[in-house]
């Protein structure tokens, strides 16, 4: 599975503007697999992404809106996209501020479907 996952993550990283893609453990916030440019903090993406999505889940539940399907975090200089795969796994991609988030999301969801 790891070679297949790594190839899938590399495909996401080939999208223009994407700096890195990580498959993370949702509970522990640790890297399961990754494909990222030099200098990208993979461990931080996994840890912070998992924590963020956990809080998103709490907020959605509080508002009666179900469970997270997709999270988009926009910073002035970059973007984080997250798509839960299962209760245990989470796909994350970090890119430039102007990255095509629709394409990144579609690719993350495609990979997530393959991993389920």
């Amino acid at each position, binding site marked *: 599975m790891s070679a297949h996952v790594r190839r899938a993550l590399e495909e996401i990283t080939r999208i223009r503007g994407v700096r890195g893609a990580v498959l993370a453990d949702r509970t522990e916030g640790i890297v399961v697999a990754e494909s990222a440019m030099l200098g990208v*903090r993979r461990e*931080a*993406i996994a840890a*912070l*992404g998992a*924590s*963020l999505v956990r*809080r*998103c889940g*709490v*907020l*959605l539940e*509080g*508002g*009666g*809106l*179900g*469970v*997270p*399907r*997709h*999270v*988009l*975090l*926009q*910073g*002035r*200089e*970059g*973007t*984080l996209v997250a798509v839960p795969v299962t209760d245990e796994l989470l796909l994350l991609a*970090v890119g430039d*501020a102007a990255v095509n988030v629709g394409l990144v999301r579609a690719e993350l969801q495609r990979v997530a479907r393959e991993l389920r």
Partner: protein
Amino acid sequence: MTERRPRAPWDPHSLDAAERLRRQGDLEAAARVAIDRLEHAPGDAAAHDLYARVLADMGNLPGAESEWQEVLGQLPRHAGAHKGLGFIRFREGRLDDALDHLEIALASAPGDPAVVQAMRTVRAALQREASPPRDRVFEGLEGAGRGLLLVDARGGVLGGAVRDADGFDRSELVGGYAADLVHEARRTTAMLHLGSWEWVVVEGSEGSTYLAAPTDEAVLCILRDRGVPAARLTLLAEPALAAAREWLHEQTL
């Protein structure tokens, strides 16, 4: 077993049989008995009350109201008639009037569980209907009063409201979680070198939410059910952010 042969109309017990028919859902048969009884005894308040209940079950509320008014003409504090009219006023959205009728019904029939439950329902509706002043922040905007919320950095509700599908206010709960999420979003953008945090959209299985900061000290939270695409929330956010900034500015003057 359904009672098919009710008693004769001159027998006062015929109404008991008719009530059983009504409860069994045989509204036509119940109506026939009530009408027969009223033809035999036009002033029988119990028969008018029963016929009104049958008409209400049939969805004929104007007819039911007319019958209950007839009852009140004879017995101004008749519990059943006031209970029935309370139901009709509730259906019309006239909640204060509904409560007035139910209070008279309860005074005439203390402890009637159906009236007590009906009063609870009406009071809950009145509470939901009450629009606190904080709703004025987003007055006129789509989702005002149910899906637009302004909180401070510590989750305290400043304005707007979030209500679930049943109309219950979830503002404080959502406000607390939203402020916590924004704190984490700021930390994440900083540590991943994504620049200063601008906004976050979360698409859920039953709906979506959008968070942004109109000022450094406040958080705007938009919630919509799944009928609204998550991407549309960023469009809805612009006027809401402008309204929030304006309101916050007014508060500091």
